């Protein structure tokens, strides 16, 4: 579990392509009203999947959070820009 990394999503940068939801539907969901992606749950992924999602996001809105907090402490739904 400690190997997981936390994902952050910049709501200002996201343009709602939906690539992230396609790759990791348990972490990302496209909000149909806002037209952008949202993080769901604890937003943690194994590093390989996290890197894939970051690299495939065309807008550059998705990042691996620096403060890799341990999984399960609290939800991190708030985009941290």
């Amino acid at each position, binding site marked *: 579990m400690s190997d997981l990394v936390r994902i952050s999503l910049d709501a200002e940068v996201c343009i709602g392509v939906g690539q992230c939801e*396609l790759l990791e539907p348990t972490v990302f969901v496209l909000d*149909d009203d806002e037209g952008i992606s949202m993080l769901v749950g604890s937003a943690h992924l194994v590093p390989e999947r996290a890197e894939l999602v970051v690299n495939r996001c065309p807008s*550059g809105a998705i990042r691996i959070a620096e403060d890799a907090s341990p999984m399960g402490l609290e939800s991190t739904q708030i985009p941290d820009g």
Partner: protein
Amino acid sequence: MSSTTATPTDITSPSLYLHGIPHERFAAIRETPGLVWHRYGNSGFWAVTRHGDVKEVSKRPEVFSSAIGHTNLWDLEADALKARRSIIDTDAPDHTRLRRLVSKAFTPRNIRRWEDITRTIASGLLDDFIDQGGGDWVKLVAAPLPIQVILSILGVPISDAEFLVELSNHLVEGTGDQPSLSADAYGNKTPLRLLPFGSPASHALYSYGERLGSLRRDDPRDDIVTLLARSQDNGSLSAAEFRNFFHVLVFAGNETTRTAITHGAMAFAEFGDQWDRLMADPSLVEAAVEEVIRWATPVLHMRRTAATDTELAGTQIAAGDKVVMWYASANRDPSVFEEPFTFDIARVDNPHFAFGGGGPHFCLGAFLARMEVQVLLEEMMKRRLGFRFAQPAVRTPSNFVHGVLSVGLEAVIR
């Protein structure tokens, strides 16, 4: 600009493209260190031809602006830019506002809902093509498929598909130097410089969209035209933004995928072994879709304009300089693509820029295009349809789109 480099050869003359993309010229520019300054009109532009440089320009939208000047090679006067501005020619926050209005309709999840309709349309077109033993692939399959699908998504009557393809063809002419329409065609009275591609066909497309918007106001439906009309009514879109949004969705939603489907069929006609390979292993279809799209590169370039002094590939760029990303070149960059001139449907690493180099202007219809091409390939496989050239391709004289006006293909059941 701060320095000039001699252009080895011209890459902008529309007639050059009658013979296909001038790949040798692009290779010469790619191999020149730094950026090459290419003369154009009274000034010029920085030709960005390497994959990595295209990516960098795409991902620095705050420096490489879409809203200054124009996103085509030529500049527009301020009033023309204002009249013609679409989601393509905007920066944040306008771009973000426009994009988010429609983004949800084009996500992978929502595009999947259109797969069955696409399959039905593709099946009918392919069956007709086969019944006739082949013919003009553009007219019979490549043009009708994407226009019918995008019209279904937008909520435009499919019975108007042929008219809207005709308008799209005239718009493409506007990117070359041989427009066929008189200025007052389609009852146009607007000065051409205020119309996208300087074409009276844009007036026709504007008028069509406005009429349809009025119809949807009276009789709202669950479609994009209704969404755009409502957005205009509640103030989130101006009248000009409505017109241009409709225009770009119809045009970009059909012309580009038509080009991909045409170059795909031509590639399978030329490289029959790749078609046999796909039919022998249909699990390669997703890789084949990406290779068809890389091979086709329907949009050859997009321009940005430097908002500030900056540096790229070791070259100083001054505020106001035009910076042109040549996707046609980036998609053949040998430092990224192994044997870039080989059509390889099983290419494993294929980070092509046919949908742009990333950043906020990443193609809105990327997943729609992929779905359409994949469904078409699957239906072709089901029918074991292969091709032989019957009539050579007639190409669009344009440095902007990689269009094919017609190509005769014989249907060969393999």
